[in-house]
């Protein structure tokens, strides 16, 4: 019988949203498998999370240790290796912690690894069939993974439908099994992101520019459109990496989460890390010169044009209204 363990990320005593998504993912992976939540941490916060999870999972394993108070992947890995069954399938989030933990965990468990899965198509013999994306979401792929000796799989946050509470599970305390938790990497502190001059999360309309803007000087074209629309300029990550706009303008998983009414994606390809920051179901307008850009799969309205020509014309028309 296949055993699936879902590693639950949490903060401040609250499980991450993906805790609601693992049960659906596990069901699609193998409907006959047992599913156990695993949660590591320390003290009252951990208890709160673990108890809360019993409404979603029949079994919740908690590992309590001061060394786990902050989720340092090296330390968490040690604890998991001592607690999990060797041939288990481990599910984790494809987030910055999952990316830190999982590749190495799969090596130490001597199992296989598949990252950033967006769907499962079940198990056939010893092969698990998964769906992934490559090239920034431009293409999808089927990837099979041999689960004979178990597997570690990260799933994309938001890819699986959340389930409703409906279990009345129990917490099993495996803290005593955690073993030696000293490591060669020590967590120091969190440095919070800087706050910028403009709060893009407060604007109902965002004119968001991506790498399609091509040059720093062209940012002005977007600013003029934003001004005409009484909107604010936001951007994708490469624009911040190039230092053309401040980090506080970046939309996405490693930037800000915005909930505007209208989101104008100008020369943005539509990677999941970018779209992960666009919430609240806004009306999305995408302008991109590549008709195959993945953004057209998630936008409401798509326009195949060069933004450097399109934006000034739109600005003129809006001004003349």
């Amino acid at each position, binding site marked *: 019988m296949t055993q699936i363990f879902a590693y639950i990320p949490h903060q401040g005593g609250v499980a991450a949203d993906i805790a609601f998504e693992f049960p659906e993912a596990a069901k699609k992976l193998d409907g006959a498998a047992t599913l156990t939540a695993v949660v590591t941490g320390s003290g009252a916060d951990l208890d709160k999370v673990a108890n809360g999870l019993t409404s979603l999972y029949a079994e919740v394993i908690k590992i309590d240790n001061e060394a786990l108070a902050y989720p340092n992947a*090296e330390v968490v890995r040690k604890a998991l290796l001592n607690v999990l069954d060797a041939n288990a399938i481990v599910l984790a989030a494809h987030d*910055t*912690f999952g*990316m*830190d933990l999982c*590749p*190495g965990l799969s*090596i*130490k468990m001597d199992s*296989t*690894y*598949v*990252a*950033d899965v967006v769907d499962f198509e079940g198990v056939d013999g010893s092969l698990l*069939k998964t769906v*992934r*994306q*490559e*090239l*920034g979401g*431009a*293409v*999808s*792929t*089927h*990837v*099979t993974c*041999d689960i004979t000796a178990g597997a570690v799989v990260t799933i994309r946050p938001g890819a699986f439908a959340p389930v409703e509470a409906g279990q009345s599970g129990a917490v099993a305390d495996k803290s005593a099994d955690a073993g030696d938790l000293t490591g060669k*990497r*020590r967590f*120091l*502190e*969190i*440095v*919070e*992101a800087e706050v910028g001059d403009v709060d893009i999360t407060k604007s109902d309309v965002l004119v968001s520019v991506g*790498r399609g803007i091509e040059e720093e000087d062209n940012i002005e074209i977007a600013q003029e459109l934003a001004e005409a*629309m009484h909107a604010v300029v936001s951007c994708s990550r490469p624009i*911040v990496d190039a230092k053309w706009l401040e980090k506080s303008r*970046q939309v996405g998983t*490693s930037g*800000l989460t915005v909930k505007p*009414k*209208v989101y*104008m994606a100008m020369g943005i*390809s539509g990677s999941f890390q970018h779209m992960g920051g666009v919430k609240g179901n806004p*009306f999305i307008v*995408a302008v991109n010169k590549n*008709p*195959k850009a993945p953004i057209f799969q998630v936008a*409401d*309205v*798509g*326009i*195949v044009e060069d933004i450097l*020509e*399109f934006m000034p*014309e*739109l600005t003129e028309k809006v001004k003349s*209204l």
Partner: protein
Amino acid sequence: MEILVCVKRVPDTAENEFELNSAGNDLDRDDLVFSVNEWDNYAVEEAIQIVDNVGGSVTVVTVGDDESEEVLRREMAMGANNGVLLSDDAFEGSDGKGIASILKAEVEKGSYDLILTGAQADEGAGQVAGMLAAMLDLPYASLVNKVEVGEGKVTVGREIEGGNQEMNEIDLPCVLSIQTGINEPRYVGIRGIRKVAKVEIPVRSASDLGVDAAVIGDANAKVKRVDYFVPDLGEGAEMLEGSTDEIIETLIEKLKSKGGL
């Protein structure tokens, strides 16, 4: 500080419109434009800056075919001191674990204080660095956006959700995967490329490396891409067509009704 940077030649997402081949099971690979993985340029730049500060040398390595030599030369034109190409028919079709095993064999031939990779490459996996570190029993940090070299250790910042930064202290030697934005990779011109055009780049095969044959190549890959496909995602966007004037007119009406104007 002796630094090894792993780099990969990948299809350039900015320069290509990806299409499936006529059989519909692979990318149409004719005319694809390739370049070095975006993240790897940041890793090489970081390595060069570290060596500029504390001394040492930067070696760039890739597992690939003959054509992958061009990305090594590009990174050497940036300022990497040495390049090594790991190439063998037996490597073809390796999964992430296979690639990490090949790189491990090369790491063990040298004596590196620091091994850098990009945070992820074309497949969006972000797996090779963490696997390599675990195989070598070295400490690891992913998504690094700050490196400060200390005595026998480095202080690193990891970029986590919301743009916050998680600071860690990590013992050397270690493996770090580098996130974009950590620095501004220097520009490489034609002249720079020309300067390194004649530099000898050693090529190492499976037997040169003594890599474990049981984990490399297609036959031993336990994780396999079986096909490419275009997902059926429902309707997608309503595409506005016509002249630019017509498109703008329609768009303005829609924006008005949705609260955008």
